[in-house]
């Protein structure tokens, strides 16, 4: 290997460099064009949302919008009952991740730090949940929730949402807890600290990075969830945003401006969370599946 470096030093660099520079420029242009194409759907949604219906019909797609037709947005908000739908989604999306991660962390604590007979079996049991799609629980879940008196109400979503989120969250929290040195816990035990105290005062605070990543990922999945909401919720006053949007599309099929305004109202929050917390989201994706 070293001999190679020594003997090839003179002839390799110059041609290689120029060819590489051209290659990189072409690649960059290509990616830029592709990226622009990728943005088109969102750009045109914005363009349609800010134009009145009449304008779209008369002037066609490519006419420049003349200012922002806010009416589309207020109509979507009011007529599409987005204020209610938003409130429901905000309710579920802000609480479910907290509850779910808490329950998962509580479970991950013994799985990681206590030795007991069924520890591995239970961990495996939870992991298996990753293989299960929500589709197989729909029918029984709707009867079960109805018999609990929660039929069709937004609150009913909490239960399956938390349950389905547990496998991944337990996996990640347990993995993270494993990295916390046992000496810390032993020292606390020697000082007489009971387990709950160890959990709250040591495990959770140290797990902040994992908690943050899980939280953000959970927020996104919860906001976007559709199938369970579709099946379990009845009545527009209980709908979450994706459901409201689908219903909205059915009702206002012919008014594109309002429809697109509705889409924007629905996606702006998640896009904002994404743009702000990109790092967490992307690291969250790969953490759960690759290493750790």
């Amino acid at each position, binding site marked *: *290997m070293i001999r190679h470096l020594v003997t*090839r030093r003179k002839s*390799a660099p110059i041609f290689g460099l120029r060819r590489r520079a051209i290659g990189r420029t072409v*690649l*960059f242009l290509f990616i*830029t064009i*592709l*990226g622009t194409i*990728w943005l088109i*759907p969102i750009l*045109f949604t914005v363009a349609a949302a800010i134009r009145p219906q009449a304008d779209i019909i008369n002037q*066609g*797609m*490519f006419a420049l919008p003349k200012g922002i037709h806010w009416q589309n947005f207020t109509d979507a908000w009011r007529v599409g009952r987005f204020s209610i739908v938003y409130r429901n989604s905000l309710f579920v999306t802000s609480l479910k991740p907290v509850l779910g991660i808490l*329950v998962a962390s*509580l*479970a991950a604590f*013994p799985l990681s730090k*206590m030795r*007991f*007979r069924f520890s591995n079996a239970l*961990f*495996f049991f*939870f*992991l*298996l949940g*990753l*293989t*299960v*799609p929500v589709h*197989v*629980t*729909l*029918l029984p*879940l709707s009867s079960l929730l109805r018999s609990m008196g929660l039929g069709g109400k937004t609150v009913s979503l909490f*239960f399956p949402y938390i349950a389905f989120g*547990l496998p991944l969250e337990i996996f990640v929290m347990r993995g993270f807890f*494993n990295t916390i040195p046992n000496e810390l*816990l*032993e020292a606390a*035990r020697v000082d007489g600290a009971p*387990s709950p105290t160890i959990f709250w005062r040591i495990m959770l605070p140290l797990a902040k990075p994992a908690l943050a990543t899980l939280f953000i990922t959970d927020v996104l999945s919860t906001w*976007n969830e*559709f199938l369970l909401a*579709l099946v379990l919720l009845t009545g527009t006053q209980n709908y979450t*945003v*994706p459901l409201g*949007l*689908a219903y909205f*599309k059915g009702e206002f099929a012919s008014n594109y401006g309002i*429809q697109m305004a509705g*889409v924007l109202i*629905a*996606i702006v929050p998640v*896009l904002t969370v*994404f743009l702000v917390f990109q790092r967490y*989201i992307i690291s969250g*994706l790969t953490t759960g*599946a*690759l290493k750790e």
Partner: protein
Amino acid sequence: MHIHSLTRLRRKGPSIEPYLFLLPALVLYVVFMVYPMFQSLLISFTRWEGLETTRTFIGLQNYKTIFFDDPISRLALKNNLIWIVWTLLLPTAMGLGLAVALNQKLPGTVGFRTCFYAPAVIPLVAVGVMWSWLYNPHFGFLNELLRWLGLDSLTRSWLGDPNTALYWLLVASTWERVGFPMIFYLAGLQGIPQQLLEAAELDGAGPWSRFWHITMPLLRETHIIIIALQVIASFKTFDIIYTLTGGGPGRSTQVLATWMYFNAFQYHHNGLGAALAWVISAITMIVTFPYIRIMSRR
């Protein structure tokens, strides 16, 4: 990774403490996932229509119907297979290509990463509504673009043709799904030591050769994960199809998940619906199981 707890020695017999911590998770998990799952399995072995209280045990007949008798179930299966093949070919390969490209440390990598992954972050229903607008025959972007370019003859009702509607749905799905493999492959690529590639280059290996013989094999773990996840997502796919075509025109774009939904919740053929759901699950379970084994050993 276990504590040799001093207090443990003083306790009489096994502690119930771990189980107390596990209790909330176990209760929620069993009551709202495991138990319903098995109830569904039982329902799938019955004939249960509408809101009747009578269920007749019919064994595997529903499954026979799905695989052999019901033309729409068979179409749905076929559509799911088409969906998988397309998804593995297009968005996955593109994701890999983009990852390789972005790994070259071009300027603006973060911007590109954002723009290709952003579609994956928004609700699929929103993706559906956006693309229904793009595909609109009268005012939609695609047809308008064609008219503007003078290619009027190519304009069409994109989602209205039973023969091709599924493919236009796949285009929308591709838009949404390219970012996901891209992110994974980027992470995987960053695990490949630069020296290996540089050494190969000095030895005279061209870019393609380096890619196929070094990069691809080293990405093996990422490949497995991505392929598994894409296969599962393809069988579960529901939102986009439901929003854009509702399984139509006719039933041409039905997939297992949508057909299950219609059977269970609109026609109230509960037994058949449950069986369809279990077909989906069986597939996802089989595909993910090897994975779970690996994860459980970590």
